[in-house]
């Protein structure tokens, strides 16, 4: 394989891997902040134990998210030097702002939150976790404004063969950003909340600390329902915007080779033949694609072959059709996973409202594997977005093949690809092992020990299993 292909694999693997942890961090941060707020308002110790229990898993997850984030930032320069030179004057901006505004805030206040339980007043300590959640959200905003530039370049001009920023606020006001950002944030809340409900369901099934986990489940399931519905609505907005900004991605995600008639049907599944540029078998729902694209029963949707001709006239000869199968199927996987999330959380919310969640044991058993759904949806969504943009690295401005580091050899990229992937594998295994371990142990029983000031910890308090239970 050539350096280009290897660099693309590395970017894909790192990004998808990193984004398994990021949405869980953002989602859990808000849920934990909410739980701790309940503790501070209600002064009920249950919420403190809850906060600490989910906090442990949050920190494990956060650690992996942070370290993979560093690679994410540095790999542009390592593998994509020509891309970095071309867009640095625009794209580098949001990345630097992200570090200055969000990372500092997030890391500093997280450190204070972890170690500050008995050093700060309750309210100041609570403010720390809220700041972490807000900083994580802002971080997503900045990074997505950078990504949005790759999808839909704005606020720039091309000078001496590179993109230069001309309007910072145009980057922040990018229409693409404001359909992408809500979709990602709601998706993150759905990820965090379905994680909480999944683990809580497991603990309820095993009848361990039912009181605490029933409450966690109730909080989680309501957030899951609201956020997965909002994710779907935001996704719909994004699809409509896609029609205007990147019709080729839209056409590929529908495997639509030829421009549709006045009312476009939605293809549920199809057997796609990219070589012959046609579909064999396909199952269609009439009118649905027009509704999806324009909110009305009529409206033509341009096909890939027509767009290809149009782009060739505009950008010169070349293949402008992205990998159709990947784009088509990743979109469907995302939508199916999202539907599953909505249905399961709707059922769960009804169960909680009727005070029957504990008794629906079959449903609770389903909620454990259902934890995977948001992760599948998040990954599939990014694969669709990034693969569907190909052959462009910055839509309309630079092709992916022109962005790679010219003198970094395939051997070097292969070494780092194998090295990082191995480390990711080890990290994932250890992470899962420790999460399972933490869940099995359950919430601490003696967290209020630090409340009663007279109580001293023994010198080896940190190592005795009872103290760390």
């Amino acid at each position, binding site marked *: 394989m050539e350096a280009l292909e290897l660099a693309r694999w590395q970017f894909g693997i790192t990004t998808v891997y990193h984004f398994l942890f990021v949405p869980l961090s953002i989602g859990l941060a808000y849920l934990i902040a909410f739980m701790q707020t309940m503790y501070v308002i209600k002064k009920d110790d249950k919420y403190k134990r809850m906060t600490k229990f989910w906090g442990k898993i949050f920190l494990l997850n*956060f650690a992996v998210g942070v370290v993979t984030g560093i690679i994410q*930032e540095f790999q542009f320069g390592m593998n994509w030097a020509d891309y*970095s030179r071309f867009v640095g004057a625009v794209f580098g901006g949001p990345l630097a702002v992200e570090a200055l505004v969000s990372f500092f805030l997030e890391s500093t206040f997280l450190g*204070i939150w972890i*170690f500050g339980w008995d050093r700060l007043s309750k309210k100041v300590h609570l403010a720390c976790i809220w700041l972490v959640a807000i900083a994580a959200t802002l971080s997503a905003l900045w990074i997505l404004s950078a990504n949005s530039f790759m999808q839909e370049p704005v606020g720039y001009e091309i000078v001496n063969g590179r993109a230069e920023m001309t309007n910072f606020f145009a980057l922040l006001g990018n229409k693409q950003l404001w359909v992408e950002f809500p979709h990602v944030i709601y998706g993150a809340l759905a990820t965090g909340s379905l994680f909480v409900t999944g683990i809580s369901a497991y603990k309820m099934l095993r009848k361990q600390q039912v009181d605490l986990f029933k409450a966690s489940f109730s909080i989680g399931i309501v957030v899951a329902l609201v956020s997965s519905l909002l994710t779907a609505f935001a996704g719909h907005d994004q699809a409509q915007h896609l029609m205007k900004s990147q019709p080729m991605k839209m056409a590929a995600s529908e495997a639509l080779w030829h421009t549709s008639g006045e009312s476009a049907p939605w293809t549920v599944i199809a057997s796609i033949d990219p070589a012959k540029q046609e579909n064999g078998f396909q199952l269609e729902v009439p009118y649905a694609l027009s509704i999806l694209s324009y909110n009305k029963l009529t409206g033509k949707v341009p096909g890939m072959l027509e767009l290809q001709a149009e782009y060739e006239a505009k950008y010169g000869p070349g293949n402008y059709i992205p990998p159709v199968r990947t784009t088509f199927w990743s979109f469907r996987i995302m939508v199916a996973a999202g539907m599953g999330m909505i249905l399961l959380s709707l059922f769960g919310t009804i169960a909680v409202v009727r005070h029957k969640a504990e008794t629906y044991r079959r449903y609770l058993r389903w909620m454990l594997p259902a934890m995977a759904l948001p992760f599948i949806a998040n990954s599939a969504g990014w694969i669709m977005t990034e693969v569907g943009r190909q052959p462009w690295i910055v839509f309309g401005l630079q092709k992916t093949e022109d962005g790679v580091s010219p003198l970094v050899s395939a051997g070097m990229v292969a070494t*780092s690809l194998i090295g990082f992937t191995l480390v990711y594998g080890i990290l994932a295994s250890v992470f899962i092992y420790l999460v399972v*371990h933490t869940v099995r142990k359950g919430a601490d029983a003696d967290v209020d020990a630090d409340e009663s000031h007279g109580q001293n910890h023994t*010198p080896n308090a*940190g190592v005795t299993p009872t103290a760390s239970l």
Partner: protein
Amino acid sequence: MLETTWFILITVLFVGFFFLEGFDFGVGMLTPILGKTDTERRVMINTIGPFWDGNEVWLITAGGAMFAAFPNWYATLFSGFYMALFLMLLALIGRGVAFEFRSKLTNPKWRSTWDWVIFFGSLLPALLWGVALANLMRGVPVDANMNYVGTFWDLISLYSVTAGISIVLLFLLHGALFLSLKTEGVLRERARAVALKIGAWTSAVLLLFVVLSYFETDMFTSKGLSPGTVPVLAGLALLSVHFFIKAGRDGWAFIMTGATIVLSTITVFMLLFPNVMISSLNPEWSLTIYNAASNAYTLKVMTVVACTTIPFVLAYQAWTYWVFRKRVSSTDHLDY
């Protein structure tokens, strides 16, 4: 003017990184060596527990700032020092998760494994930064298209390894003194004793590095910014450390290693100015703050953002050190 401002800001970010992460790298390297029991090692880790992640953000910010302000510097440096960066990233990944993972199981083997990950995760970046800085000072093979045409092994020489070792020693000293301020009892005594020993070695190796720089670089003759008395002050600060420890003034000793780190970093960047990457093939091909920079508008926007946020960052990070100003004791609640 804007380019110079950004060169200074990036210097500030690296100064922040080396000063702050310097002592937590040092503590990381000292943990498995000075900590005889698990509790002692836990105490040592907890001295940097609330801070290390915030300290590391100075590096991430420096990387982001280079990308935004000097895209060509970022692209040439990161793609050129590829394998060195790869190793550093592996080290930082291991170290970052180790702090979180180690306390989750009580098995001694598990803990000792992660302690050694912390050790190497702290040692390797320090060593590699030394190697990188020496090469930035000496110049590396950069072609007319701003691409690095050497290999990883071209970066390794007696000179660059000496730089690496002096940074490792400096960070060890800085870390030992940080421990002398944040621990008590035998651990504190051990930290002070090791600081005295490392102090002498640090001065010797750093002196060797300065001598080698005279032969290896043209910094002493070039027309860049003359650092004047800055490096002299850095040397004096380092020499004073010994006397402050002897006099029992650990706080001053720590300030003095900090001053050495800050002043040495400033010296390196002053000598480099206005170059950011010197080409050893042809001086015409060197990257400077002018041919590596972003356009004026981008630099202006970034200046506004940086100058409004950095004071806040300094303020709340300082507050963190205030909140956790007490020495960490083995009778504290240690596991988090």
